[in-house]
């Protein structure tokens, strides 16, 4: 068995590293950190998130805070989404775009206050993103702070996540919190910011705490959730979950060569915003039509499509698989790729080349998986499932 990832710099550890080791997690290098890829098994952890709940350490991710008179103005330059129109208390999924309209990174944007915006960025792009902010802040009256090292982040995801968190929450109500909203309060007695966000396609929360408080919060959540089926879950399950939910992974499905229009993420673009990096390029692309678009597919033959495998259409190789796996909950081999725009729709037959063999596959609507939703009374007679 080969062990990839050489690297001579020592790996960094999150505040929860000891917990993962104590739980018997298999640890792997990821974005310069030693992170848990699995505890009991990717499939078991994945299924737990879909049927009960999973607990993830995502402290390796980056947090950048903008404060000052021009905080919103700078944020509005860097992302195509309107931050000015985002009320305090709300979160938006967006991207840092280049002048050519490609993704520097995909991000979450938190409107903290009138003059305060928090960005959550991918661990793998921390240095690149920090440089990007610093390069563009000239002329803006704003203070930029990289709070990544001072922030631990725990994701609690799954249909039972609300009840698990509710018992530990003070100052906010997980049962009533709406999707893409954040609130400040305490979790297990420790100060926390909690957003109803996640990377799994399930109801869930991302809990920001001080690194010193992370172990206590982690322990309290695990204890509160064990009886309800909560399992610690690693990066392996994180990847299969987000793929079933058709969420892009930077570096795989989106990168500097893909625009939000090509990536089927047009919703992040607020065309009526005056100015943002990449706007001119996107306007041109919208007028001309995108050349290609992200699609999902299911493999019909026997085999699994993976990142990098060639994709054939009408007898020619047209692209490569951007992300692919055997989906643990769906029980099918799924994947994403880019197809020429005029064929980028469900029902198109393609082939995926797996180690020299071309397997039949067919494009399908996204997402592959959508969590079941039903109107039901929850305690205060509110539908907490609003998206």
């Amino acid at each position: 068995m080969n062990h990839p990832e050489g690297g001579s710099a020592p790996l960094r550890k999150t505040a929860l590293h000891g917990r993962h080791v104590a739980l018997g997690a298999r640890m792997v290098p990821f974005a310069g950190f030693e992170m848990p890829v699995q505890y009991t098994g990717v499939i078991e952890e994945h299924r737990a998130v879909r049927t009960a709940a999973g607990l993830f350490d995502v402290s390796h991710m980056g947090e950048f805070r903008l404060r000052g008179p021009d905080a919103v103005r700078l944020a509005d330059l860097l992302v195509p989404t309107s931050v000015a129109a985002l009320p305090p208390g709300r979160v938006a999924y967006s991207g840092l775009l280049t002048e050519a309209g490609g993704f520097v990174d995909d991000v979450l944007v938190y409107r903290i206050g009138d003059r305060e915006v928090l960005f959550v960025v991918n661990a793998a792009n921390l240095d690149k993103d920090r440089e990007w902010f610093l390069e563009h802040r000239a002329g803006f009256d704003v203070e930029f702070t990289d709070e990544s090292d001072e922030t631990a982040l725990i994701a609690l995801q799954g249909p039972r996540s609300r009840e698990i968190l509710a018992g530990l929450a003070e100052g906010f109500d997980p049962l009533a919190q709406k999707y893409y909203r954040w609130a400040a309060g305490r979790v297990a007695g420790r100060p926390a910011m909690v957003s109803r966000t996640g990377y799994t396609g399930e109801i869930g929360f991302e809990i920001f705490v001080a690194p010193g408080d992370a172990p206590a919060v982690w322990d309290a959540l695990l204890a509160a959730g064990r009886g309800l089926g909560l399992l610690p879950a690693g990066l392996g399950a994180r990847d299969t979950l987000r793929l079933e939910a058709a969420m892009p992974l930077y570096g795989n499905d989106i990168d500097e060569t893909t625009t939000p229009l090509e990536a089927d993420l047009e919703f992040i673009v607020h065309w009526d915003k005056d100015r943002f990096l990449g706007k001119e390029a996107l306007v041109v692309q919208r007028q001309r039509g995108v050349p290609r678009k992200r699609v999902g597919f299911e493999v019909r033959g026997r085999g699994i499509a993976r990142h990098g495998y060639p994709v054939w259409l009408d007898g020619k190789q047209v692209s490569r698989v951007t992300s692919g796996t055997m989906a643990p909950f769906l029980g099918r081999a799924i994947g994403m790729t880019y197809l020429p725009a005029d064929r980028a729709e469900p029902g198109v037959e393609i082939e995926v080349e797996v180690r020299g063999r071309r397997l039949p596959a067919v494009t399908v609507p996204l997402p592959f998986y959508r969590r079941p939703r039903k109107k039901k009374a929850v305690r205060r007679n509110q539908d907490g499932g609003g998206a």
Partner: protein
Amino acid sequence: MPRQEECRYTKEHEWVFREGDEVVVGITDFAQSELGDIVYVDMGETGRRVNAGDPLGDIESVKAVAQVYAPVSGEVTAMNELLADAPEKVNQDPFGEGWLVRMRPADPAELDALMDHEAYRRFLEEEGH
């Protein structure tokens, strides 16, 4: 059913068990554990001849593809059909229901050149497992 003490082992963590004039081949418990949840097994076609060390097939876990190598030279005579619908048998029972292929070895002496159970155990220790 192969008993671990009676198998021979390769450095690639395959086991081989002699049954009459055929051998049964699989991967060890260490190998299945390293791979994690196995979701797909592809051991190619029966009837083909391979040399010791040639790729025999692929085992895929959620995250990765691993090659399995022929421990001895010979003809592949059977595949474990159970694994088409239940690849997780390789994780659950790597020496039993999780067997991979049967072969007719070209040269039974090749088996003697492989590690026995004790030598494989020491090999794992030396590798730090």
